[in-house]
């Protein structure tokens, strides 16, 4: 199961967050800060999976943007790792360049939020069953 989906820039600011299990807002900030700290501190030749508390983080870096997904122990890390890429490819396809700047400039964010909830309506061929979790 996927627990949350975060997009963070290199400075550690959250750019997008989506939780699939309810977390209180004030706890979100703390959680995000820790998650980000955990991922940003890792070098490129370390693996992209981090154990954090009782779940795992899978992260992937695109230029200055990190995408971090929190998953539980039953999930296949590599599959999630590729899911992130799939997601980015879709963004890329529909919104030209994906970078933090691009995201902001094109106000795509608003659409990504929608995407998260209704991907399968528009982008079915890309977002396969996985997004049913979401």
């Amino acid at each position, binding site marked *: 199961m996927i627990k949350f989906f975060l997009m963070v820039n290199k400075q550690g600011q959250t750019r997008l967050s989506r939780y699939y299990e309810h977390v209180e807002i004030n706890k979100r900030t703390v959680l995000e800060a820790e998650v980000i700290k955990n991922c940003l501190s890792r070098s490129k030749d*370390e693996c992209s999976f981090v154990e954090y508390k009782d779940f795992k983080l899978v992260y992937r870096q695109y230029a200055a943007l990190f995408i971090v997904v929190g998953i539980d122990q039953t999930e296949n890390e*590599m599959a999630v790792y590729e899911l992130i890429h799939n997601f980015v490819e879709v963004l890329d396809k529909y919104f030209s360049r994906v970078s933090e700047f691009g995201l902001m400039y094109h106000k795509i*964010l608003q659409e990504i939020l929608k995407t998260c909830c209704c991907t399968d309506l528009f982008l*079915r061929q890309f977002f396969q*069953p996985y997004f*049913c979790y979401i």
Partner: protein
Amino acid sequence: MSDVVERTLSALPGLLGQHDPGAGPGGAGGPGRVSASSRLGSLIRSITALTSKHEEEKLIQQELTSLKATVSAPSTTLRLMKECMVRLIYCEMLGYESSFGYIHAIKLAQQGNLLEKRVGYLAVSLFLHENHELLLLLVNTVVKDLQSTNLVEVCMALTVVSQIFPREMIPAVLPLIEDKLQHSKEIIRRKAVQALYKFYLIAPNQVQHIHDKFRKALCDRDAGVMAASLHIYLQMIKENSSGYKDLTGSFVTILKQVVGGKLSADFNYHSVPAPWLQIQLLRILGLLGKDDPRTSELMYDVLDESLRRAEINHNITYAILFECVQTIYTIHPKSELLEKAAKCIGKFVLSPKINLKYLGLKALTYVIQQDPNLALQHQMTIIECLDHPDPIIKRETLELLYRITNGQNVIVIVQKMLDYLKEGQEEYAIISLVGKIAELWFIQTMNAVFSVGGDVVHSDIPNNFLRLLAEGFDDEKEDHQLRVYAVQSYLALLEEEDKLYPQKFLQVMSWVLGEYFSLVTDVDPEVILTKLHSLLKKTFVTSETKAWIMAAVTKIASHTSCSKTVDEIIQELSSSLDTCLRQYAFELKHLCEDKALMKSLLPFDASCSDLVVDASLSFLDGFVAEGLAHGAAPYKPHHQRQEEKLSQEKALNFEPYGLSFASSVSSSGVTGRQSPTGLSFGSDISGNSAETGHKETNTLKLEGVRKLWGKEGYLPKKENKTGKENEPQAVPCGSLLAGQVGEAPALRPEQGASLSEEDKEKQQLASTLFIGLGASAGVSLMGKADTATQKFKRKSKITETQQLSEEASDFQNSAASNFDPLLDTVPDNVEDSEGSVHTGLRKGSPSSSDTVEDNLAFETPQSLRKSVLDDRISANRLSQSSLFADSNIEIFQPSSSAQCESASETPLVPSLPEELEELPHSEVVGLCQSDALALHLCKVWTDDSLLLIVFVSNKTTAALHAVNLILESATSHFPVIEAQSVEHCQKCVRMNKVCTQAILPASVSYQSEMETCLEFSVTLSLMDFIRPMEMTTEDFGKLWLSLSNDVKQNIKMSPCQDSLSAALDTLQQKLKLHRVDVIGNEGILACQLLPSVPCLLHCRTHSGMLALWFRSPCAALPDGLLYQCQKVMEES
């Protein structure tokens, strides 16, 4: 389907194109819209430009204030509301609460046009959670939209339902959604399935009736609908795999089609067909095929195909392969597939790509339980991973090692784990790893664990550790060493004055010091006391820990003559603010005044002996009786009081006040002493119990104290010492290294030839790590998971006797004082007891026995004495019955020729002396042993006493000197026991007060290199003192009428013994009752409690029940016998 996609795609620029108003649907963006959306843009831009968190907060708060004003203004249009909502979502996403907008989001979803509705729904699903009260307001909107003719509206409603919906409102929309399963548009069907999946997750029983429809969805012609239904199936199969075995074929076919590329290319990801769908299917197959050879058979082909197809080098295929491997190792094994899977794992583990390595390690960890040889193949890689710079890889490797830990490699693996711990990871990692190490424990390791893990360690771990230490292993010597080592190491740790230790560690330390300080002979107890004293003064020590320390101080104090430190502690704590500590101090003070009492109260190394708890609190009976005599109201249980209160409130009390002292006493017997086993107490019994209780308050009070005593004793005592365990033998690390390098089974020959130093080191490490994993050890490792878990869940083999004592505790008073050896009963004591109800019990004394015999007029059984006794014994017995002299304990010197022979033939298997051999006796059982001597016990049931024969065998090759055996308070002394020989002494015991079971504390001390003392206990049962009593039916009748204490009980008879005679046979054989007569369905039996308290039993059968009716002059005896009868009848 494709038309929908096309349509939506064409609509997309309209939805997205807010930066280009002209392209919007209808092109009517208007200036308001542009400004609104650019407001979001500018908000985002300005936030991105900010550098500090503080500035961001200020900006957002500003934004929120303006938004709040806008949304609550009545003039705000829905379009403007939509823009506000988008900004609110953004703010909330950054972690700023905007709860004021929630209700407006719902309104927007309710009232807006398509686009606004969409934003409204989105906002709702992001803002609210399942149990939010506002969510109920959404239900109507959803119902309305589900019924809409506009597809998009239906879609939106279904989407929101599949994300968030109040559980209690499911029935309101369920029929509507069910209808949608037959909808002509696949997108609707798919969303309906997703919504039902959500329902299944939050309320499985609500969707139970539509399982058939799920099957239909699985066979839907649209792949998307089918894929959606897989989620439901995965969930359902997880919970109950047996119910869906028939679908295995379908899942296999689907996977075959997916793998074969039969799905549309839309599903491809980097030219891999529907990878996530494949993973989903593989998981389902794994669950279905687990432990089921027939089902597994069906999937071998498709798994093989999946493995083959996934040979392109891409991350996503690795993900699929990983899933394949897991499935292959989960289902019933097939060697070809296992081979391929193993190859796959090998490829992963050896890969230079770090993510792949991780995946490989994870897979290896999973399969290692089935196939330990795989670990051997990759041992060098594992060693490398152990030193990998990436801590995550390291941790995964440790996880792997944890699975292959066995008795031989435990030390090395624990060392590795500790190294990792010391690198200082975050708390969660420490907790999980500490848990693992605790399973692979060792004292030194535990010390490190406690200091590093500190107070986050789960409280079970120190408890288990102490239990392990207290119960010990098979080998006494090893236990001793271990305990000495523990004491020494803790003393060394406490040497450092100002070091802070975690509380749990201090508690462990103080328990160990208190319990085992005397094992370390070279340290003055005073030194330990001083250390504990200084700990007590520290401020960081919590009061819980202080209680532990005080308990330790008390224990140490009981073994030292007089200590200044103890006095100091008492003085300091007597005025402590902490009541608990003050209590401890007072207890200690009083105990110090009576050393002998203290010693008996706190016996050395008794933490494992059983504590008998008198649950009925019968020792308080005297107190109660006294209270009643002074006019106190009898105790009423809570519910009774409440009932009475209620009834009193309703009606007037017409009873006269303040009457009937007698009735109150008798009622106390019933209400005051509730019998947990449901035994019935006659009303006249209360007088007895009160009286006996009164008589015993002097001695029994102490047991009460002991029961209250410290927590440290309480915990381990619950477990019985007899529980042995198969803890891996600790093999010294050094010898292991030396011994195994050469013969390590897994060294590959090609590595052997030319090795650098470093490699050699690694190989050495490998050989220590993977020892015991070879082919020969493979079998034992298969069961590894079991042994690993067993290690801590030690089966506490509670002996039967203990269970007995627990069950019987209701009418059983505390152990030690119940049994007085005969020699204790000095004549004055007998005088005291004269006239008490228990006269019969004390028959051994000449004065009372006459009276009893006169009164009761029954024959003393002679028949049993037919068995010939040695002159010496009978003479002895005569002296016993007349005088209670010390001659009861007889020491048979080895000079007796016959014994000498037998001893030399079988030196360490003691046998009874000939003259006792012919009497009925128990088997010779071991009591305890040290490396020097062993103690065995045999109970001899002579017809008028119970003889305990204790054998002391010298196991060493040298003579033992000055062996003192203390049984209760009688000492027998053997000046010397020759090497490899057995001595024995015998002791006559009788029951002073009736109880079902009692424990006689005893100890033996001897002089080898140093003075050593062993403590043990002898468990005696009521049945040891019961003898048949022969009498005629006539005598029975007379006696029956003269006896007053009776107990009646019906017990169920098992079908195999439904006849009266069968039941009587059981009682006769097992309980040594004498069968007096049988008439019709009634039978009478008689027995006596030694020395000569009769107990008569009348049995009657009716409709499968056996009615037992006991009568005896002693009140407690019928209860005890009834309990034994019940037990015997249940057993047979």
